[in-house]
């Protein structure tokens, strides 16, 4: 019987079995940001511990960084304190810190891959649930809390139990106007936000095989929204080509050796899975969330579901969503007026996301009264986009072109919704209050769909705009 990638990587990184039955798992790459690490560094100091593998931890600043000006001191005193803390912690423990003045600052899940830090066969941990993003490379990558950040700093290990593996095969061909974001929203819609609890998701099938690395990152990124702490795609030629030439990827003969090892960790053809789910690409439309969790999603041409169509157990959340989002049930989601459009985040803040959004932005101008933000995922993404002139496309169409960071995905910086504003957002969570206003409303969708909403002022099927643009 063959092994899955999860099992291979797990076994390779297993230091020992603990008395609890859990694995002491070596973490090959530890990523750190300013929000979930300061307490961990304090715990290390209080306990008199060291950081024995400082070269396996890399840090940046993303959550609190303003996107209008990164000038120091940051205007928000608490944000400045967090910035100073991560600078000091990295300096004291000898950790590489990608500050804004390095030119490599950005969302931690954007810079890891683009620098070539993220590689197949690694275990990757970060005090951030969207660490699942790195699974796109065939890494076993998952989010951890602050006490576990402490553990990784102190030992480069975690005490953790091996998850089950569910293979999700997406077969067929995505229709024009349907993106990786729609695939992930569709999967979460079908399997639910609790469906992945206890599982790692292995994404496969012809649709996933055909995806670019950036699309695979979008797919793996939202595994956690489906309850799966990690998701991955087996490494293949697409993975290898992405890594070739990256700044911190191996070079020359080492790259060839790396390629052989990377491909060897892919799941065997006869690997055994705890569950297999098959999805038909033909069933996936541009998808929009209407509720207060990412599973409450529908095709853009569908109507808000009726409470009676849910089980008694699910109805409470549905009624809560109606009340919070101001729906009755049964009305179409298309045509919903928006106040803000946000393009960015670790889900959809990469170059290809901005290219797709820019194609739509070219077809019109941001509707009067709509505030539209484009926040590149990293300084590198910003440079590449600017080299292609995408910034000019966005600005000409009435979007604001900002500096790199997490921004309005979770609104820990000054980019926040106000009051009951409705935001068409390319981010990953539509939780109550997620975008900075305790009563703000979020509709998740692909970057192209956000751009379509920005220029029409309402939730719009991007395929209609693209068809007009091609006419």
């Amino acid at each position: 019987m063959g092994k899955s990638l999860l099992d291979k990587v797990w076994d390779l990184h297993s230091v020992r079995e603990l008395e609890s039955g859990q694995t002491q798992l070596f973490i090959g790459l530890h990523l750190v940001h300013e929000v979930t690490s300061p307490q961990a560094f304090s715990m290390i100091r209080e306990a008199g511990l060291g950081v024995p593998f400082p070269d396996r931890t890399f840090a940046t600043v993303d959550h609190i960084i303003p996107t209008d000006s990164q000038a120091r001191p940051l205007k928000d005193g608490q944000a400045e304190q967090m910035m100073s803390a991560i600078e000091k912690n990295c300096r004291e423990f000898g950790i590489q810190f990608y500050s804004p003045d390095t030119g490599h600052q950005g969302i931690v899940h954007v810079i890891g891959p683009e620098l070539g830090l993220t590689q197949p066969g690694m275990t990757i941990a970060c005090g951030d649930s969207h660490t699942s993003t790195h699974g796109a490379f065939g890494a076993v990558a998952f989010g951890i809390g602050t006490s576990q950040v402490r553990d990784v700093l102190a030992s480069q290990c975690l005490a953790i139990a091996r998850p089950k593996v569910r293979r999700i095969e997406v077969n067929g061909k995505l229709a024009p106007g349907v993106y990786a974001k729609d695939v992930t929203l569709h999967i979460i819609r079908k399997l639910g936000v609790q469906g992945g609890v206890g599982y790692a998701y292995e994404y496969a099938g012809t649709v996933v095989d055909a995806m670019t690395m950036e699309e695979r990152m979008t797919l793996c990124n939202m595994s956690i929204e489906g309850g799966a702490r990690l998701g991955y795609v087996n490494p293949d030629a697409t993975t290898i080509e992405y890594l070739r030439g990256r700044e911190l990827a191996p070079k020359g003969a080492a790259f060839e050796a790396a390629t052989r090892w990377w491909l060897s960790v892919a799941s065997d053809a006869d690997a055994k899975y705890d569950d297999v789910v098959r999805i038909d690409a033909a069933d996936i439309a541009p998808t929009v969330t209407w509720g207060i969790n990412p599973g409450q999603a529908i095709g853009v041409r569908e109507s808000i579901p009726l409470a009676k169509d849910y089980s008694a157990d699910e109805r409470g959340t549905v009624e809560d969503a109606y009340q919070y989002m101001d729906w009755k049930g049964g009305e179409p989601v298309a045509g919903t007026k928006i106040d803000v459009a946000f393009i960015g985040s670790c889900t959809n803040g990469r170059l290809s996301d901005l290219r797709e959004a820019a194609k739509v932005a070219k077809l019109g101008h941001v509707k009067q009264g709509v505030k539209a933000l484009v926040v590149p995922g990293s300084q590198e993404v910003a440079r590449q986009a600017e080299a292609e002139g995408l910034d000019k496309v966005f600005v000409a169409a009435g979007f604001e072109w900002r500096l790199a960071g997490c921004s309005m995905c979770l609104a820990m910086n000054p980019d926040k919704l106000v009051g009951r504003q409705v935001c068409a957002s390319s981010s990953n969570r539509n939780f109550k209050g997620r975008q900075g206003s305790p009563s703000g409303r979020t509709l998740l969708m692909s970057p192209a769909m956000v751009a379509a909403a920005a220029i029409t002022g309402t939730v719009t099927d991007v395929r209609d705009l693209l068809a007009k643009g091609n006419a």
Partner: protein
Amino acid sequence: MSAKNESALIPVAKVVGRPIPLRGNDIDTDRIIPARFMTAITFDGLGELAFRDARFSQDGQPLEHPMNDPRFQAKGPRVAIVNKNFGCGSSREHAPQAMYRWGVKALVGESFADIFFGNCVAMGIPCLIVSEADAAKLMDAVEKDPAHDMTVDVDARTVTFNGLTVPAQIADGARTQLLKGTWDATRILVDALPQVKETAARLPYTRAFAG
């Protein structure tokens, strides 16, 4: 202040405290602690901010919420009873830290999100799983007559309230960690550093794929 002790092994075999029901599926960690309260370099003061936006309107008026309900204001350790997929979303340990600082020393529920569960174990907070029917029974019993302690028995895998005892589950590894006091794993992990270095040396990427 840390919710844990760095040096001593503290077994958590049983938690006894006044229960508080927090009804609803898929309660995410943004709801438990909104991100705007996380611009700080410590966990201090988070207890008062737990469930802030569910408990208070934006102008500070108390809303209907169990944490505002006079019947659930007992002093001392508390046990939260929850439904499905509690703690989903963000990995922020600020969420269990906020609940712990408000008084919650154990949770009983239908299911817990993986990262939230792991964070709780790492803080020595047991999360026990009960059936949907038993969660409903416990919540109903508590709401009817809250002035009794609930006993969360990690060793026996039971939850008891006012004469009602229901079976409960917890992953074996987490249960062992709680019972042995090894839920604070740092020292155990650090003790194996020589083996960690051997494991690291076997991985080709730690040698930059040279030789």
